[in-house]
């Protein structure tokens, strides 16, 4: 694959990566940084990519790992500062607006990182369970049980608690 072809293939993935990054980081700037870092990493590691690996799953995996690394670093830093337990509320204007509009989105936004990622990959992006297992580095059975938990959590937050999460998010 020549460079312009690689660039084209990556470029078509940009909107999906941005959407994922936005829902993962819940901050527009952080999401853009994540996508940019993902692109850099992808270009640098392009030759180490297995041919049978789907480009989409590969990129999602890079982005997800970058996000987790960043979060780990941030929490170590917080630990260093002794600011533990005072987790920062996400600044997330556009998503808050949509969240306000729909209780399902509000519930979705309130889920933990991994559950948000799982639901996005499986229901929105349509990745196979095998691909998701590859991204998370867990057996497919584990993906299934985690997906059940995520779907139950989404339902529980969406039902009955329609108003509260939105209000909490809006502050």
């Amino acid at each position, binding site marked *: 694959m020549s460079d312009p072809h690689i660039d084209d293939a990556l470029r078509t993935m940009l909107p999906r990566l941005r959407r994922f990054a936005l829902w993962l980081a819940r901050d527009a700037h952080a999401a853009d940084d994540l996508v940019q870092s993902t692109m850099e990493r992808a270009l640098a590691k392009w030759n180490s990519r297995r041919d049978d690996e789907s480009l989409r799953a590969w990129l999602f995996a890079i982005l997800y790992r970058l996000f987790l690394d960043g979060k780990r670093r941030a929490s170590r830093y917080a630990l260093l500062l002794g600011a533990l337990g005072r987790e920062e509320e996400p600044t997330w204007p556009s998503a808050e607006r949509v969240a306000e509009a729909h209780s399902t989105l509000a519930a979705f936004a309130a889920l933990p990182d991994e559950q948000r990622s799982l639901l996005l990959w499986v229901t*929105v992006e349509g990745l196979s369970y095998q691909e998701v297992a590859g991204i998370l580095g867990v057996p497919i*059975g584990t993906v*299934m049980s985690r997906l059940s938990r995520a779907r139950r959590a989404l339902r529980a937050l969406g039902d009955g608690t329609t108003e509260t999460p939105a209000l909490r998010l809006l502050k």
Partner: protein
Amino acid sequence: MTTSPPSEHDIHAYVDGHLDEPRRSHVERYLARDAERAEEVQAWRQGAQQLRALLAGDLASTAAPAMDPAVIRGRLRERRVRRVAIAAGFVLCLSLGAMGGWMARGMGKGAMEPMADAMQAYRLLAVDHGLGLDISTPNENDLRAWLSGRVGADVRLPDLADAGFRPMGGRLFATDQGPAAMVLYDDGNGHTVSFYVRPPGAARHLLPRGEREDGGLLANYWSSGDHNFAVVALADAAGRAAAQKIISKAI
């Protein structure tokens, strides 16, 4: 058909619409029997559909140019070029340092070569055939007295009459190691050989017997008693033969 409940995998596949017949009917039959589970799975399906519909809009946003792969590729290349430049600079510094070190080593070596002063003294005087000597006499007794008074009483001046060489005279030099004396010999055919003696210096740098050539001169050197000696001649056949004779007498 089996009546066992479908696997977790099949339930999710059903929710996500990945399930083909006959497993799809199997799931549906199972859900028909279990109203509570059916309600949950139905809610999961709805949630998934809503998410799909609601998040589809987020794709419309245009990507910032900073994220474009071609732009990033260019930036990575720049970074790589910068790194190579830094590495090249580093290598350049290293090699300059190494070169400098090598040259400094060369500089220092001149002084470190054994009896380099003897060769310089020869160059200074023998080439002009004895011009500028402190004492010009063929008399060996006079020379012996001159030598013992200045360099050391125990220094023996070789008698080279048998080898066909007669002394022309001597000259004193100040060296870092102490006073040095050179006596020049001549064989009457234009061949000049020097006999050079000086103290080994404060560090008592005594020499093993050796010889070396430098700039067309041949130096034989050794240590004996409290002095270092050198015999210097031109590094040609006649000089070699003469030096050989003198050394056999002198040592």
